[in-house]
């Protein structure tokens, strides 16, 4: 049966009585005066922007560091390492920019749209986390490919690598290990967020 918003019945009167009581509930102790609250909000805004700038500055510092390394160290190995690091940093920077973009502007969307957005952000976080494995895989494959090239065409350079094989293997293992630890920690957070969202969405969808 269609709802008739113009008609008032006993149910509306019951709501009115409850609303009257509800609106008399004193707002929880308001520790801050309105002016103080405004100042706190503006300070939080500044802090938020500064943190974002600091994060971007870190990425640019990494880019400069890698560029300096590439300028100082010559050779295919340095180039490959530098290029891979640049790819990693660019990937991270892309994520940092996109995950923030317009987020606060979207806060005033409806609850259903907000939940859809949170779900999409969760999916985006998952995709980026998975892509880091792709990057690590590409980096390790490129290194192994380079060893093969050295072995065939530059035996002297390969001999130096062979002398340090345990160090090289340890670096590769530590890289994979750190990536695995980070990935596990991050995915646990994302999955917990996804579960909470799914539960909320189920309730909202059931009511649609």
């Amino acid at each position: 049966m269609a709802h008739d918003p113009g008609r008032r019945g006993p149910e509306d009167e019951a709501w009115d009585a409850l609303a009257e009581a509800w609106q008399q509930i004193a707002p929880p102790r308001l520790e801050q005066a309105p002016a103080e609250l405004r100042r706190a909000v503006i300070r939080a805004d500044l802090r938020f922007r500064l943190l974002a700038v600091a994060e971007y500055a870190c990425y640019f510092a990494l880019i400069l560091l890698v560029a300096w390394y590439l300028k100082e160290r010559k050779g295919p190995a340095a180039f490959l390492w530098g290029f891979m690091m640049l790819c990693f940093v660019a990937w991270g920077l892309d994520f940092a920019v996109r995950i923030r973009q317009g987020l606060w502007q979207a806060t005033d969307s409806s609850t259903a749209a907000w939940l859809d957005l949170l779900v999409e952000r969760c999916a985006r976080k998952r995709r980026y986390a998975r892509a880091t494995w792709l990057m690590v895989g590409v980096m390790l494959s490129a290194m192994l490919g380079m060893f093969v090239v050295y072995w065939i065409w530059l035996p002297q350079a390969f001999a130096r690598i062979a002398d340090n094989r345990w160090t090289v293997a340890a670096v590769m293992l530590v890289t994979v290990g750190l990536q695995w630890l980070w990935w596990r920690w991050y995915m646990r957070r994302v999955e917990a967020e996804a579960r909470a969202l799914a539960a909320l969405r189920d309730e909202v969808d059931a009511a649609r």
Partner: protein
Amino acid sequence: MDALVPLPLLARPEPAMTTDPALETRFAELVAAHRPSVGRVAALYARNAADRADLEQEIWFGVWRALAGFRGECSERTFVFRVAHNRGISHSMARRRDLVDLDAVGELIDHSPGPEQRTAADQARARLFDAVRRLPPNLREPVALKLEGLADREIAEVLGITENNTAVRLTRARAALRRLLEDDDGA
């Protein structure tokens, strides 16, 4: 790769950094008009007084950030309630908390200092607040909006559902609320 496809909502432009006095005045007016309501919404999603204070500030921060992009597609009241409930949802998810902590109700709403000094009306209001907090989120949100005096059309705008669905949810919520209040009376 699909990760690079911008989301429709995320693609909305971020406002430029602003210290626009007109915006500050508008924000001050919103705070003055809606602070009690926002305080109650924050209390619904918070676990204790400190958490509630954090969330209230978070909500106003959200209002401040979204205000520059607000073009009046809905009323200011709807705008504030949308931000408040959306931030409340995100806040409770980020803290991964069960929203229902009955012991905290006393901290979350203001009433007379001691139980012996509370009037019957105080106690009735505390019971109502407690009952609304105990509703599941899909019912709690429309009820909180209804009790703040929003019309069904405005509630539908905040939730992003149809007016008919809003009426259905409110009917269910009213029944659930009645049960909770009766249980409370019986206890």
